[in-house]
């Protein structure tokens, strides 16, 4: 075998097993994204947009809550700078995902730009906490989690945009599947970690900011508060880590 075909077969040996492990991890996302995507497609349909809008927007933006906001933006007066600033505010939490994934995404090769593009709440939550079996290629695992989540979201939005008005099954409340998933991921992490400082700081300061600033404005103050407290506690938390090792 020459070098290229050898590399190909090595890659194939990594790809399928990673897919097989990634797929079950994303099943709750399948349920949640298909449902939310359908809801989003129906909303766009009811606002008078053709199905191509939810399909392209879910494909290119791939940030659920922002897409619901975008639906309303498209109905208001044209103001692109406002749209940009609002997006930066709503999606500011992604900055935290990036900082958290700098090390994990190191060395995954050409897949990296796409994995950064698709770094949504759900891909972050799964990839940052997953216990990946040692024989599985971590890069391909995280890549498939990203691709599958992206696919489910576009699939749901397309279904909703095209067939939404024919839906008769009462799906009210199904969106709770995402909340349940995040709670489960939080508990899984809780059971794994040695100290709970960071988890409690994140949870506590977010609740505090939600009470103080309300649902639409709490994320940025919460991020600043989390950064501030984690920075102040740096020496303590790093000592903990050294002890644990």
């Amino acid at each position, binding site marked *: 075998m020459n070098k290229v075909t050898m590399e190909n077969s090595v890659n194939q040996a990594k790809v399928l097993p990673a897919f097989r492990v990634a797929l079950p991890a994303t099943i709750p996302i399948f349920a949640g994204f298909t449902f939310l995507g359908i809801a989003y497609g129906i909303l766009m349909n009811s606002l008078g947009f053709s199905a191509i809008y939810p399909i392209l927007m879910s494909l290119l933006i791939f940030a659920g809550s922002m897409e619901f906001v975008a639906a309303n933006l498209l109905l208001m007066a044209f103001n692109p700078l406002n749209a940009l600033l609002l997006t930066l505010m709503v999606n500011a939490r992604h900055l935290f995902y990036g900082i958290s994934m700098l090390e994990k995404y190191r060395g995954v090769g050409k897949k990296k730009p796409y994995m950064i593009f698709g770094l949504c709440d759900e891909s972050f939550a799964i990839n940052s906490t997953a216990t990946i079996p040692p024989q599985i290629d971590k890069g391909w695992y995280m890549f498939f989690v990203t691709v599958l989540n992206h696919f489910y979201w576009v699939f749901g939005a397309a279904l909703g945009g095209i067939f939404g008005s024919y839906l008769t099954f009462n799906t009210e409340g199904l969106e709770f599947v995402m909340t349940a998933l995040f709670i489960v991921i939080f508990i899984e992490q809780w059971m794994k970690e040695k100290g709970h400082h960071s988890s409690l700081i994140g949870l506590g300061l*977010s609740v505090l900011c939600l009470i103080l600033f309300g649902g639409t404005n709490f994320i940025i103050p919460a991020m600043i508060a989390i950064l501030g407290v984690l920075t102040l506690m740096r020496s303590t938390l790093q000592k903990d880590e050294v002890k644990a090792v």
Partner: protein
Amino acid sequence: MSTAQHIITIAMIVLGTMLTRFIPFIAFPSDKPTPKYIQYLGKVLPAAVIGLLVVYCFKDVRLTSGSHGIPELIGAVIVVVLHFWKKNMFISIAAGTIAYMFLVQMVF
């Protein structure tokens, strides 16, 4: 808005979203050593941000009106209790979601 204005607006939203996703990776490229402080954040942030995400899910709950967040609270408690007890992701998520759907459709 015209179709062209729609396209520009959507393009700005794509740009904004991608800025928030790519900035950390552009600011701290993997071929250069990442500052110690950022490495520290990379270690301690994920747990805190998952906490933020959980709270984020409840951001639209109104305690003073509607169902007062009771279905959300019951659903969440079911997920927490089941997960500490059975440690089975599918049971916890399915039971919590079905209970929540039942509550918002039939009870509240």
